[in-house]
């Protein structure tokens, strides 16, 4: 009884049993569309923020990430030799975006076919479950690229190229698992814009006649007045059976730089419920804080209440892969 009285008296004096800061702002839902901000330099971490993968002897570009169960990241990327233009797809793993790789970069897929012309790169990785990964990639020179496919049944330890390669003419493939098949977004050096092709089996693709994303020269302030390329599709499940998936398409846009004759790349976003008809997001602005330096080659992971965007940018004559966070 006295204890009860004591509690009442304490309460009467405004002495609450707990104290905390105003809340209700944690873990807010997001579609991971952005905006993104590059990780800031932190001298207490081993990473060279915002970069997570860098090698001063080669170009590292086009990150294609998958989430690791422990919160880390698996990243496939293009490792290009700037001297002879050859490239291969390499692989590394990161525990987080402020650490050095805990699985060091290693070769994942090299050129071996005549049509690949000593260049395989610009990877896009789809996880079909059960250790089955599908890799779409570009093979061949920049002026005559084609798209190939490789499968791994051991969770990426080894890859087998498809006998039907090349599947499609184009470059920078971005695969997306839709409700009724696979979509592939890509660029065609002969036709501006980001194009799409669909397939029921992920091998035989039908190309759509018109691009799904085009440059916006009429919007003078837009980040993509001159070109769009480097698509990456982030596919998430919705809560509506009539529109079961949402496709967030990240892509690189080019506009004129501040200095005459220069161009500036930045990463933008568009969304779609059918994977074919896209709506722009953020108006004229990109979703990653605009450069210089130019950023491109987005690869995005949706994480709890946020997103992680990997990108490449040119620094000191070499492309490096960095990370940006949302929110």
């Amino acid at each position, binding site marked *: 009884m006295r204890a009860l009285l004591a509690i009442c008296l304490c*309460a*009467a004096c405004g002495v*609450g049993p707990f104290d905390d800061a105003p*809340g209700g702002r944690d*873990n*807010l839902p997001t*579609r991971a569309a952005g905006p993104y901000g590059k990780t800031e330099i932190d001298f207490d971490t081993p990473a060279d923020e915002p970069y997570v993968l860098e090698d001063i002897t080669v170009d590292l570009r086009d990150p294609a990430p998958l989430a690791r169960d422990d919160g880390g990241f698996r990243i496939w990327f293009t490792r290009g030799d700037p001297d002879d233009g050859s490239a291969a797809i390499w692989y590394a793993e990161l525990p987080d975006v402020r650490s050095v790789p805990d699985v060091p970069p290693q070769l994942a897929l090299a050129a071996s076919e005549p049509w690949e012309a000593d260049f395989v790169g610009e990877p896009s990785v789809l996880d079909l479950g059960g250790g089955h990964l599908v890799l779409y990639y570009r093979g061949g020179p920049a002026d005559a690229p084609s798209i190939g496919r490789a499968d791994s049944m051991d969770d990426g330890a080894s890859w087998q190229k498809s006998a039907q390669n090349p599947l499609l003419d184009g470059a920078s493939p971005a695969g997306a698992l839709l409700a009724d098949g696979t979509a592939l977004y890509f660029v065609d050096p002969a036709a501006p814009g980001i194009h799409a092709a669909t397939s029921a089996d992920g091998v035989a693709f039908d190309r759509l006649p018109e691009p799904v994303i085009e440059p916006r020269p009429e919007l003078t302030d837009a980040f993509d007045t001159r070109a769009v390329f480097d698509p990456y599709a982030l596919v998430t499940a919705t*809560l509506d059976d009539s529109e079961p998936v949402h496709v967030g398409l990240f892509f690189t846009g080019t506009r004129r730089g501040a200095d005459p004759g220069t161009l500036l790349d930045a990463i933008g976003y568009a969304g779609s419920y059918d994977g074919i008809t896209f709506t722009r997001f953020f108006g004229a602005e990109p979703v990653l804080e605009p450069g210089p330096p130019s950023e491109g080659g987005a690869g995005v992971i949706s994480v709890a*209440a946020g997103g992680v965007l990997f990108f490449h940018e040119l620094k000191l004559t070499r492309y490096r892969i960095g990370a940006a966070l949302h929110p």
Partner: protein
Amino acid sequence: MRPLVNREDAKGAKIFWGVPRLLRGPTQMVLVFAFFVSSRFNSPALANPVDAFGFGGRAPAMAGAQTAAAADGSANYYNPALLATFDDIRVDVGYQTAVPSLFVNGLDLRVDSSRGLAVALSSPGRIGKVHLAVSGGLFLPDQHVLRARAIEADKPRFALYDNRPQRLFLGANLAFQIGDRLAIGGGIAYMAKTVASVDLVGRLGFPDPNDSDLALAIDADVKEIRYPQAGILFHATPWLDLGLSYRGGYKLILENTVRVLADVGREDDPVVENGRLELFALAQDLFQPQQWSAGLAARLTHRLLVAFDASLHRWSRFENPATRIDLDIDAGMFNDLIDIPDTPPLPDPHYHDIVIPRLGVELRLVESARRDLDLRAGYSFEPSPVPEQVGESNFIDNDKHTLSAGLGLTLRHWTDILPRPVRLDAYGAVTLLAPRSHHKLSPVDPVGDYRSSGRLVQLGLSSTWHF
């Protein structure tokens, strides 16, 4: 004199019923009461933790089914008419807490808990032949006496738990007994709102801002707000009471003004003379719906009391709480270069009215000359007034099921100092938020689809002291 079924302890008490001769009929009393209320309180009511979690130690244990069953200071909130049934001075002191765990996509948003001191003082008496009671109730949070914050329109928030429980409740009531069967009561509840302005007058340095010469004046008022509450209690049969209560609706508006009146430029050669910038921000910080409650309290047996309430909450009048900003600039010869677009209208949130059923039972387990022990339980269902969030707004809310239980121990002749009864109440309740999905129509909605769910755990202790 037939005791009203909700009067908990009339043993040995002298009851004073009746009204002055001039006000003998119920019609006249209603008119007096209506005048009392309407002459002062045209503004409606406001949200507070009591709305969300109840008041006192007994009422939350019975899921808030108290419109005809309140038996302590909680009548200040549930139905002031019940205060007229008290036959002695009562002081209620307690502590209540509600701890939310509210999830979106399985992640806890860490919404603040609500906790604080609940006190009430009820004093019955008589003026002539009129039996009446005056009373006051207070819930005083121990974190925020008042928290005001305006959030962007599209920022997700649990609409009914974000800000609503973070402020005090203070009410004062007056109640009359009319004859043997009727009691009416009413009063006002108080709240405060803030109106603030910041004025900068002088010269704004340009191009060097360090050359500025500005006088700063800040004017912030904490203004009183009153809103009405009223109730009627009808003693229908020896075992049945019927109650009706009303609480007004209210909007709390945050008003903030920033005003700059200054020359711009160097002191000897200003670029703009008598420049002016006025930013006026209005935001609906809080809203309480108008509430009508009808209830009954049936003493089915000597030991068993069953109470039922149905409450209509007029949420359809809820307006979009996002901040509206008006910006006015006079920059002299530069006015042609300034184009401030009109603020687009905020979308209607499309809340709808809801009816909340509440059921409570009280079973006397032990009854003796020195002590009684009551077991209480309750259930309520509060449907969400908020539609599925398919557009830009993200007012998250779910249907709510509340299960509650509690104990009440009444001690008589406890000490010589306290010869009158002392009652100790404790309760616990769990509110479960039924999972709910929100699918966005726009493929570029930045928030996207989400699923909300959650629970709230409520605990409280209270004591009622009779004098």
